[in-house]
């Protein structure tokens, strides 16, 4: 298979304009002859479904939640980047492009990143017009804040609920089109497979989660906007329902999976409190501005934080990175926390965290200042842990948060399966090996509002409006396969619950393919995961029926796919013999213990082709060239 990213020729800043002119158009009167399926209703899915419907296409949008408004984009806190340069501080499209390529540790595609930076401004215009209540200055202008990885103030925000507000904006655009009848919104329905007819994606198979009915839907093109796969780790900051099934099933049908090992571990989350822990909660990174991170010097320390004298504390980030201190980038802060906890210097009842201490800031600035800056976060922390951070230091630990990897797409956001488009976190394209803060929302909306409406038109114009025959045997075949799989899960009738398997899988992936990875650990995981998978299919217990609302069955189906994906994540991590961004291989470090890239051997996208369960996938490479942002080593000393 030849991987053609279809990047237009010419200087990077002209590529998108040129490409938009080169794309074929569908006559306005003909658009209603085309059906498009959008799976997922988060920022990418809702914005795509709404925009495609406005253009005149007939859209069916599927969501597993009871309403499109509940997709997990809603939980994003910090903000959204745009190169508006409203602060007159030297920002530009070029600078946002540069920061994003560098922040991704040179593992993203330049042309895509430039387009993202270019569209960031359109997104802001769009969102303001939708009535999103962004933070304002007293003069009525939009306010900005700074974020990690940038030296300009380009992040727009709506309190600590930017994701919520942007999603509600996209949701409102979507319901507007539901009202016109151009979008058919199908809730509580999960995509379980994609149907390929004569080499083109022509529909999907779904399960109605209320009745258990499995049905097929036809379309001229399918857009997957189903988010990331952090829940492979079991514990993550993702919503409980986030899953890999849609993209994994597409992968099994021929869509290549790119850089699956590129996952982001966020440094400031609340550590787990016991084995009943169901998910992890993120605390805004902004806390690191005034909190000092430390652990006791002594291993196995039993004294309380307040009883440990200054001379016996190790402010390890300040010690290792005198110039950046507590504000080192996410990947570094996370890795160093793991190091000290592994060294038996962790804090808390379970010794599984590090302190984030506001004592000095409280003394220096006073309680009122700290309360004004972080009051809501302190409250949130106390609600969860029962500890008052004004009196005792917070405990934090890194947690899986975002996945940069995903299905491989070309410049048009089309996967290697013609007619199957992938947008938002579900694709791999824009963040390389590490995503910068406030860039996830930007990418989801850029893809949905401003990229897919153009590129899908080109595809549709080429294939023509002839509808797919819903009676084509491919639909029945795939539906039967889905039914078989569901039956198999229900009939295993073993002894172990779905969650117990998921926790075990999560533990394996976290240990081998989490913050630090090495050859031996990954090889063991690649051996262990198939064993666990086999055990799962034999010994899982899924109570209830298939033709009923059955949450255990939903979870079991998702876990079955995570079981396969987890192996691929480990294989990719093993293959990539370098350290870059969120991918840290212990064997490839600089003498100072930092990530060491190998541009000679690994300046490419690793895109994997599915062969069979338990067989090695086939590797395809897309070389990455950096014509505009010269390759260099990051340093935060």
């Amino acid at each position: 298979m030849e991987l053609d990213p279809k990047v237009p020729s010419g200087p990077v800043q002209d590529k998108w304009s040129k490409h938009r002119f080169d794309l074929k158009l569908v006559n306005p009167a003909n658009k209603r002859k085309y059906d498009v399926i959008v799976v997922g209703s988060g920022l990418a899915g809702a914005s795509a479904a709404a925009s495609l419907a406005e253009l005149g296409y007939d859209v069916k949008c599927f969501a597993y939640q009871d309403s499109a408004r509940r997709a997990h984009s809603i939980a994003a806190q910090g903000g959204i980047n745009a190169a508006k340069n409203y602060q007159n501080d030297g920002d530009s499209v070029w600078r946002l492009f540069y920061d994003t390529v560098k922040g991704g540790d040179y593992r993203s595609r330049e042309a895509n990143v430039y387009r993202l930076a270019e569209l960031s401004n359109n997104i802001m215009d769009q969102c303001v017009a939708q009535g999103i209540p962004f933070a304002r200055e007293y003069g009525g202008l939009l306010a900005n804040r700074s974020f990690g990885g940038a030296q300009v103030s380009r992040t727009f925000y709506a309190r600590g609920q930017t994701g919520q507000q942007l999603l509600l904006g996209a949701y409102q655009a979507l319901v507007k089109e539901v009202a016109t009848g151009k979008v058919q919104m199908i809730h509580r329905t999960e995509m379980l497979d994609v149907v390929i007819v004569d080499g083109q994606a022509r529909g999907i198979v779904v399960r109605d989660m209320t009745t258990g009915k499995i049905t097929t839907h036809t379309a001229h093109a399918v857009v997957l906007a189903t988010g990331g796969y952090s829940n492979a780790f079991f514990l993550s900051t993702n919503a409980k329902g986030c899953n890999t099934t849609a993209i994994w099933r597409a992968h099994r049908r021929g869509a290549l999976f790119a850089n699956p090992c590129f996952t982001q571990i966020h440094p400031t989350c609340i550590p787990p409190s016991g084995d009943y822990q169901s998910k992890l909660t993120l605390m805004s990174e902004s806390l690191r501005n005034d909190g000092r991170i430390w652990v006791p010097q002594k291993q196995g320390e039993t004294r309380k934080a307040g009883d440990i004298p200054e001379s016996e504390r190790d402010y390890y980030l300040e010690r290792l990175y005198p110039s950046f201190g507590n504000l080192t980038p996410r990947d570094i802060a996370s890795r160093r926390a793991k190091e000290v906890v592994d060294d038996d210097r962790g804090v808390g009842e379970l010794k599984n965290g590090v302190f984030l201490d506001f004592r000095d800031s409280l003394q220096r600035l006073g309680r009122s200042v700290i309360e004004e800056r972080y009051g809501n976060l302190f409250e949130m922390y106390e609600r969860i842990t029962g500890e008052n951070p004004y009196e005792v230091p917070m405990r934090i630990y890194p947690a899986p948060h975002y996945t940069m990897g995903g299905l491989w797409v070309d410049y048009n956001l089309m996967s290697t399966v013609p007619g199957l488009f992938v947008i938002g976190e579900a694709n791999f394209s824009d963040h390389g090996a590490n995503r910068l803060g406030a860039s996830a929302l930007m990418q989801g909306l850029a893809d949905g509002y401003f990229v897919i409406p153009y590129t899908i038109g080109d595809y549709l114009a080429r294939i023509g409006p002839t509808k797919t025959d819903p009676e084509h045997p491919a639909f029945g075949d795939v539906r039967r396969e889905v039914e078989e799989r569901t039956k198999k899960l229900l009939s295993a009738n073993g002894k172990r619950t779905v969650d117990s398997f998921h926790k075990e899988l999560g533990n394996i992936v976290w240990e081998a393919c989490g913050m630090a990875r090495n050859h031996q650990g990954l090889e063991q995981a690649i051996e262990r995961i198939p064993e666990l998978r086999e055990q799962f299919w034999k010994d899982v217990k899924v109570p209830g029926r298939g033709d009923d609302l059955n949450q255990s069955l939903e979870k079991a189906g998702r876990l079955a796919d995570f079981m396969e994906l987890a192996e691929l994540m480990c294989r990719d991590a093993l293959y990539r013999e370098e350290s870059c961004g969120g991918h840290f291989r212990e064997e490839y470090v600089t003498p100072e213990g930092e990530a060491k890239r190998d541009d000679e051997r690994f300046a490419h996208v690793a895109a994997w082709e599915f062969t069979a369960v338990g067989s090695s996938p086939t590797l395809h490479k897309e070389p990455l060239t950096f014509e505009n942002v010269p390759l260099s080593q990051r340093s935060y000393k």
Partner: protein
Amino acid sequence: MDLGLNVWRQAGPAAQGGFVRYEAKDISEHASFLEMLDIVNERLTEAGEEPIVFEHDCREGICGCCGLVINGVPHGPQHGAATCQLHMRHYKHGDEIWIEPWRAKAFPVMKDLMVDRNSFDRIMQVGGYISVRTGSVPDANAVLVQKEDADLAMDAASCIGCGACVAACPNASAMLFVSAKVSHLGLLPQGQPERRDRVLNMVAQMDEEGFGNCTNHGECEAVCPKQISTDFIAQLNRDLFGASLAATGR
């Protein structure tokens, strides 16, 4: 701690429901309320019984999926928090806890503790938006918005659509939900052109769905996880009055 749970179990929308008592033994005070239910469900599954169905997703108080009536109070005893943000340290060994779904005509029970809230989506569909096409918009800073208005709009916009307001209201009114959206958009310059139709249509749809009206009990604000103020209901009534007059004069 050990607890006694009295959980509403109902096999389907048409089935007769009832309370079933479960022992929840050895629960950590650090567990969240939903994690406590997870533990109970794991044990039920192991014993070959069907676990309790309840809705949840983000588990950090923002998606609006979760919602249980706990001892008669939507989202339980903690002020300004969703069910998923409630932790077991608010309970003590030996407590008896009653857990029910939202109860309202417009939120029919689907199974156990899960209800159908699509009526909220249908209210939104008749006007809970600004009609703007992708791309046909002015520069983001072209329209100034007074900071006070933006802040107040944000207060209203923080609604997570969980429906606790309806569950708490003796009339099962959706006025807090509707007023939050009407006020959010009505406070902003972008929302002005459709302001009158929006309030008329959304209130009409609310009635159509079978929600009751507001008689100023204030229960909604008391249980709202985002502490949305009933002032917005007053704002809605002003808008509705003005819009109705204007509509009559047409």
